[in-house]
């Protein structure tokens, strides 16, 4: 059953306080993401020896940023198990997708020609 509208209109002080305590964190994460963006740009002009090394550095930073967005902004830090289950299946298939792409490079037809 849905609650009455009058009931849900009232401020849930505990929930409001909980959200309010997170606002500063959201701003800090936003600042961290902006900093990491500038750092990514800066590091892309540093020669790490090989192009591959530069790609690894940039992807590590991008993964860290994506993790911040997912955990903090998308609240995956403390979410219900149902959502984690959906995401675990997704991660499994996404890894499979990239693994198949990797497999294409060991295609014997490609190697022979």
């Amino acid at each position: 059953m849905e609650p009455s509208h009058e009931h849900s209109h009232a401020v849930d002080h505990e929930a409001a306080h909980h959200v309010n305590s997170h606002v500063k964190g959201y701003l800090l994460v936003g600042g961290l993401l902006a900093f990491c963006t500038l750092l990514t740009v800066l590091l892309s002009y540093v020669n790490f020896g090989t192009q591959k090394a530069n790609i690894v550095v940039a992807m590590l930073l991008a993964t860290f940023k994506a993790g911040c967005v997912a955990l903090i902004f998308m609240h995956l830090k403390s979410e219900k198990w149902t959502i984690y289950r959906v995401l675990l299946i997704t991660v499994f298939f996404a890894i499979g997708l990239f693994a198949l792409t990797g497999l294409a490079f060991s295609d014997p037809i490609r190697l022979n020609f």
Partner: protein
Amino acid sequence: MEIPHTVTARPDTGLYNAKIGIWLFLASEVMLFGGLFSAYVFLRVGALPGYWPHGLLNVPVGTFNTLVLIGSSVTVVLAWASLKMRKFGQYKLWMGITILCGALFLIVKLTYEWPAKFHHFGAFIKQDALAKYEPYLGNNYLAAKGLPPRVEITGDIAPGSENDTNSKVYVFEKVDAIYADPTNPEMDRPSFMPRPMVEKRVEVAKADVEYASMFYPRHSSYFSVYFLITGLHGLHVLGGLIVFTYFWLPVGANLYKKNPEHLANRIEVVGLFWHFVDLVWIFVFPLFYLL
């Protein structure tokens, strides 16, 4: 009849229904963009030396757009938090800023970044004719340094001349700086600030050209996958903006008066979508602009 569990959690999942719905949708989006990114990897790794361009996109503009999108992710979460704290005025403000940021991102992309590419021309030189264009390509210099060769000359061509069937040459009126000074060590790597084009008349015989085109998707694997991914991403930004604007208009105020928690949940759901769009861009930016 009222739709159940728009506000309260379902006992079995512990979540209101829309939240399950959006996460299932985002799971499908991961696979959609995953497929496109794996295509990027496949094309890039399979590209012959010199055929995957570097430094063609405007890095300061891309950085600016990335910061704008990150800013909008912060403001949308603040808009949601304002609703949870029942501060409707603050919600309107943060949501308004989010809409402006999203619109700014699209305006920059559609009125500056993409059109600039559509006016740029590139001619891939045939392998056996590369030596003829050595003064513009500097491949002997690159080979001595162990760097990949240059196989294309890019710049500005007189409008319409690329389709002039009577002419046997492509005439560049301006070329990218790299082809005016190809053995300058500064040109070995892309620069942060775009180098201005150099007024230099360069004639490239059509018989020496393997393929030539404006920087359209058909130009190369790079631009094909660039326009596809950034175009699809742009459509997602547009979709998010439409929903944000809908809830920023009186519809949102009416729903708030009726049931503020319902509006907060709707903003949380569209906010999750928006964060995902931001998350995709976090990977698009370095892969296309920087690496």
